[in-house]
């Protein structure tokens, strides 16, 4: 114990790379399924839907040059992959000549920040509530109230976002309507800025947490009930261990394991949900730029942003996979 085998790490890493590769290839392939070269097609669509593309000729020429669209398909593919490795997603059509990478670079930290906070909160709160729902010493009142909040679980985060905006931002005016920080405020590491950010991020985070915690609560409740029936819990009680210690070291510590596995699996949908929430709130994250790109038919941005999100999700899953054996001793570090 204490040593990862190369085979294990290689296997997990392999899956990660495979995921990225498949996603990138699919994203590359789709525009090429349309007739004609992709960039002209994009521009034609943009102009047909009313967007004006300045310097269309220059864009097309520059693009063809950079991405070798005149080269045979396999060569294009290889160049594309090479570019991806350097995070070169091309240029934005709506904001030419800004590189897509720049646009994404501005939005990504906001998304990551919100994601980290909201998703971890949802997981911890959800599992905590699930655990106390089962523990005998929880007052009945709390136990009765929790399921009421779980109604939110059924609705998608985007609907919760709409509801929250309407009630708390529009009607009650407790929170701002949009954006990740007040318009025109200087971005700096001051308390004023940070508190403004938190104020702006509260409703978006709440949307994600409210909608997701119920799933964890249900799951944890089920797992706690299952673990409670196990022989080792009975023995723990027979040993006269303190009840709280039994709760966390014997019950929760074992019940949480499948929850963590489930967490890795649901990360994809969590990210998707948050993207939609950002769109509704005009929060300056990936959701916002994706929506703007959809509206302006700025396809390279859509491509690049989606790809980055996929990479981040896959990376998070990889990290969880690699750290899981540290908490579940039954999983060996050996390759399966």
């Amino acid at each position, binding site marked *: 114990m204490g040593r990862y085998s190369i085979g294990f790490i290689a296997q997990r890493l392999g899956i990660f790379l495979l995921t990225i590769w498949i996603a990138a290839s699919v994203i590359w392939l789709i525009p090429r399924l349309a007739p004609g070269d992709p960039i002209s097609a994009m521009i034609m669509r943009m102009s047909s839907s009313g967007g004006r593309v300045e310097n269309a000729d220059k864009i097309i020429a520059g693009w063809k040059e950079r991405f070798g669209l005149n080269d045979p398909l396999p060569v294009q593919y290889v160049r594309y992959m090479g570019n991806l490795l350097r995070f070169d997603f091309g240029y934005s059509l709506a904001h030419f000549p800004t590189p897509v990478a720049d646009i994404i670079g501005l939005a990504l930290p906001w998304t990551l920040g919100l994601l980290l906070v909201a998703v971890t909160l949802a997981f911890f709160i959800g599992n905590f509530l699930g655990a106390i729902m089962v523990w005998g010493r929880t007052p009945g009142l709390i136990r009765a109230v929790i399921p009421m909040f779980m109604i939110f679980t059924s609705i998608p985060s985007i609907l919760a976002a709409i509801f929250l905006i309407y009630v708390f931002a529009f009607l009650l005016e407790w929170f701002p309507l949009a954006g990740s920080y007040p318009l025109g405020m200087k971005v700096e590491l001051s308390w004023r800025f940070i508190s403004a950010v938190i104020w702006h991020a509260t409703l978006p985070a709440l949307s994600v947490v409210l909608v997701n915690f119920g799933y964890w609560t249900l799951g944890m409740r089920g797992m706690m009930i299952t673990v409670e029936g*196990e*022989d*080792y819990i*009975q*023995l*723990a*009680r*027979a*040993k*006269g*261990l*303190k*009840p709280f*210690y039994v709760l966390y*070291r*014997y019950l929760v*510590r*074992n019940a949480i*394991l499948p929850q963590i596995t489930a967490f890795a699996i649901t990360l994809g949908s969590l990210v998707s949900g948050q993207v939609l929430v950002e769109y509704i709130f005009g929060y300056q994250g990936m959701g916002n730029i994706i929506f703007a790109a959809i509206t302006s038919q700025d396809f390279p941005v859509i491509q690049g942003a989606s790809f980055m999100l996929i990479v981040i999700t896959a990376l998070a899953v990889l990290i969880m996979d690699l750290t899981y054996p540290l*908490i*579940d*001793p*039954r999983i060996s570090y050996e390759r399966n």
Partner: protein
Amino acid sequence: MSHSTSMTEANAPVLRVRDLRVYYETPKGDVLAVDGVDLDLFEGEALGLVGESGCGKSTAAMGILQLVNPPGRIVGGSVELGGRDLLKLSEEEVRQIRWTRLALIPQGAMNSLNPTMRVASQIEDVIVAHEGAQRKAALRLRILELLRRVGLPERVYDLYPHELSGGMKQRVCIAMAIALNPRVIIADESTSALDVVVQRVVAQTIQRVRHDLGMAMIMIGHDMGLMAQMVDRIAVMYAGKVVEVAPVRALFAAPRHPYAQLLIDSVPTLRERKPLRSSEGITHDPRNPPPGCIFQLRCPHVMDVCRSAAPRLKRVGPGQWAACHLYAEPAAEGGRHE
């Protein structure tokens, strides 16, 4: 091993169970899993508790330990350990008594150990829970000594349960049970889930530990042959009641209660061929036992009185008690001590 017979009235038992009742709630009525069980356990002795599946022996043990979970509940009776009735104590008082004076060696060491804790930690936590924080070095030595006592190699200290074999896990449970030197240990089917060879090793470990430390033990099982080699006295249970208690030799030589006779008869011996007597298991509805003797539906000697009056445990020989109307009430004995 029949010294205890002469000491029956002289010593107070270290564990004294009277009229223990544990019922299980079901939608159609309570299942009378344990219905008025009386047991005495004396200092340093080993009492076997036998009976077929469903007779309530494990439930009785759980009742003694107060580990009965819903839908089961303790309905009545008393469990006196060193004079104090456990059923009357508060939860915290019971928690303090657990393991320090009354320990359990569970059945199915398959799943009795926390999968996410090392062996050492699991023994350590019970010591610390009852004795408070200690120096790591001393604790480590103590645990290693416990492992040595049960014949486990030192390397087991750092292992996780899934890395141990069934027999090793069972012995870890034994080591854990003796950690705080309790007066009474209940061993619930501790050899049942193991194969024959390992069974022997574990049984010998238990014997040795008992011999070294001198605690009293209740051993629950259904293997009469194995039981005979390990205990001083045997209590036979049927459908929630104790029907006979006797020293081992007396029980095997002359079982008095018809059910005990059935059991002894079914133990194969090398000496004679016994006809295969098929018996049906508990045949009445445990929610609705017949009035009178609990065994009446299967008893080959059933009489009219059996259908109306439930027999009480009566002395039918030195240290031997049976609950059966076949035997006359003994002349003024005073009390119902076993």
